């Protein structure tokens, strides 16, 4: 979608994005020639449709970028799974610093899922913390 300042016949430029508010994001556009500004306010359905592309309005590097949602599209489900696991005493594991750093090589898209799965595996194997040893053991066990 592009916006045109009709009096100037000039493309309007994205000047500002604001964080989501109950599913709506606000995008302020301005005309580089006359300085006229207007705001586009998305409805939640529009926000969701754009968010389904896995992008952020204005780009990921934009400091003011409005993040439509967590980068993990399953964060709600993962939280529910974690909560269910905590009831069973499976999560809430401490992680050593080096293990935590290794987890960061997993893209944030799937990191919460990875974390939950590793903690479950560690618990099932009788570990009381997630450390390098359990990560290496799991990798060997699953042929990685």
């Amino acid at each position, binding site marked *: 979608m592009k916006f045109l300042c009709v009096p100037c016949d000039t*493309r309007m430029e994205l000047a500002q994005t604001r964080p*989501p508010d109950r599913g709506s994001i606000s995008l302020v556009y301005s005309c580089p020639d006359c300085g006229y500004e207007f705001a586009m306010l998305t409805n*939640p*359905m529009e926000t969701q449709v754009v968010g389904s*592309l896995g992008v952020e309005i204005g780009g990921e590097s934009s400091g003011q970028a409005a993040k439509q949602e967590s980068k993990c599209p399953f964060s709600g489900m993962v939280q529910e799974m974690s909560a269910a696991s905590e009831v069973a005493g499976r999560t809430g594991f401490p992680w050593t610093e080096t293990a935590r750093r290794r*987890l960061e090589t997993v*893209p944030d898209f799937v990191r919460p899922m*990875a974390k939950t799965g590793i903690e479950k595996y560690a618990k099932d194997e009788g570990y009381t913390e997630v450390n390098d040893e359990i990560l290496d053991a799991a990798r060997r066990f699953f042929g990685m």
Partner: protein
Amino acid sequence: MKSYHDIAGDGGSRVVEQVEAQRARIDQNLAGVRHRVAIGSGKGGVGKSTLTLLLARSVARRGRRVAIFDADLNGPSQARLAGLSAAPLLPGRRGVALARDRDGVGVVSLGSVVPEGRALDFDSVEKGSSYLWRATREFTAVGELLGSVEWGRLDYLLFDLPPGAERTQQFADYLGPETAFVLVSTPAGLSRAVVSRSLAALETTSNPVLGYVENMSGYYCADCRAVKPLFPQDRQVELSLPCLGRVPFDPSLAAACDRGEAADEEADRPTLAAVHAVADRIIREVEADR
């Protein structure tokens, strides 16, 4: 007044740029994969996932490096079939490490992280509108996974597709024309009719379709050591593509797969022999063409 096409750029949203970057990341991550083969059907319940795993193992036994991507996010079954239900997503050097089954076949399946009995649920800012965006979100998730896994160097990456003729076509569009397709049917007229729709859908793309496999082509009775009919043979629905092989149903093999156990390769089973013949044919077709 200027029109849309008179104006360069995308208005500052950078949406197109980010989508293109996603595609570039996927292509870069799959650069070590020589051949992509998608196993589809259009019809559910034809044994597509089991056949995909058996074919992957057969291709691996022929000295090829093979992995499976379980593209059925809503009904993932490869993790269970491969005995990797308990395999968590583990960190590799720069992404997600590739889990392997006992035959060395790499498997990526959400079935290893989403428990059975739980439906895949995407975050949503508004409930009740998933019909508008869900398919797009699923393909974005497929892309994120493809771009996150350390595939390394592979001779074959097999895609176990979800059912649905429209899904088959969408995956053809998404995976690009270099991905070859194999369709799976049963001998039943209903199944062949649905597969013929999938074929018609694929004919609108430029993807090569190697042929179809007739799965559950009779069943193997271990007592009388014979293959007997399982479905009424219905040849009224013609499939205008080569039949790559006919694979009989073997209850004991199906039970082993269901438990995530390996097939007994030493056993004299017509099902495995048929799978190996299909694997040989796929290798011949794919490697002759490219």
